[in-house]
């Protein structure tokens, strides 16, 4: 697991209060991990803070699964 993936998972576990085993790449924040629209915004903010990124709203809207978040961040921090 990449460094980015590990950090992303840790943030999700912390913010959504879910078990680490549930945080798989295909897991959807809202459908599988119990997030509501506010939780999703907060996750994006945490990713921005952790990786020192700016994720514009139109891009943030496309991030709905764990895997999409990791992929977006990995491409952005390269």
């Amino acid at each position: 697991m990449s460094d980015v993936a590990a950090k992303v998972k840790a943030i999700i576990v912390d913010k959504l209060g879910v078990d680490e085993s549930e945080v798989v790449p295909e897991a959807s924040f809202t459908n599988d991990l119990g997030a509501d629209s506010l939780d999703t915004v907060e996750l994006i903010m945490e990713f921005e803070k952790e990786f020192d990124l700016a994720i514009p709203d139109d891009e943030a809207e496309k991030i709905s699964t764990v895997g999409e978040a990791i992929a977006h961040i990995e491409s952005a921090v390269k």
Partner: protein
Amino acid sequence: MELKRVVITGVGTVNPLGNSVQEYWENLKKGVSGAGPITHFDASKHVTQFACEVKNFDPLLYIDKKEVRKHDLFTQYAFASTAQAIEDSGLDLEKVDGDRVGVIWGAGIGGLQTFHEEVRAYSEERPRFSPFFIPKMIANIAGGLVSIKYGFRGPNYTTVSACASSTHAIIDAFNMIRMGKADMIVTGGSEAGVNEAGVAGFNSMRALSTRNDDPKTASRPFDKDRDGFVIAEGSAAFILEEYEHAVSRGAKIYAEVAGGGMSGDAFHMTAPDPDGRGASLVMKWALEDAGIKPEDVDYINVHGTSTPLGDIAEPKAIIKTFGDHAYKLSISSTKSMTGHLLGAAGAVEGLASILAIQNSIVPPTINHFTDDPEIDSKLDFTFNKAKEREIKFAISNTFGFGGHNATLVFKKF
């Protein structure tokens, strides 16, 4: 329209004297102070370094782990006291018609700590506010969340009138049931103002006691050397229920809500009217609403915050309203023990009044050392020691910044 009778069928609390109703009452009777050095934050640079904090509070007894961080402390306290009260009422949540149960809550400030943290983070760390900033901070959120947890779809709102907030909430809940708009209402209030902004804000107003060398005697209502109130936090909740509804489900009844009064000082932003006009008026309206005479009242749980001006105006108002009967009343300020819970004061003090009625014991005004020549010494403030007394009617006064006055009348059942 014939008004319905309203009784209290469940109670709950977390406050500086205890995290259950029983613990609270034991400490009220014994005259225990809830004050101590502030532990919630580093208060070493603050003028006042002590408060009446809730001790050993475990939110996980009431809220799911992943939910805790989404709720300001004032909401967590609301979850705690309402859960206790609902359990105490013996209400069967499966059977009750949620459409006929409301939540009318009181909070004077709301999520002050959330506001502070978020503004700080926005200024120092990130160019955004958390999406939870607004819903976590707004003063009405606690009542909304309680209704969501239990599926109570009746009247739902929060009253905001500073230190009179929860008394207004209870009066509104009483009136709502009286008028037949609901069968039951979860009411009361919560506050969590023991934080940097709360302490420093009230310090700037010179409202808080600065007796850092002796926190436990700092809240000394009606004492000559009182020097301000002691800030406190916590919550109390009541299940108010229409009498026939309570009887039909065999509920235990703590006391009856007999009446409520409300008035405005129309005088000053923070100072009380020195003649106690608004305070006298609110007690008069409350007695009228309950349909009783001043002579019927046995006990007044006063606002009595331990501030220089407030503690002079309120006794004057009592004499104005009660005449000679004022000297036969038992009076006490339980803020001498709990400190001042701001928007939750009316709830914890209403609870003290109900427990006093039920147990025929007047809790004391502790920390009395020296009489104040400006306060009529013929009044019985129940100084330092609880007193046995049969109480048929008790009233509870609360006054808030802005000149908001609210008084409740409780009757022995």
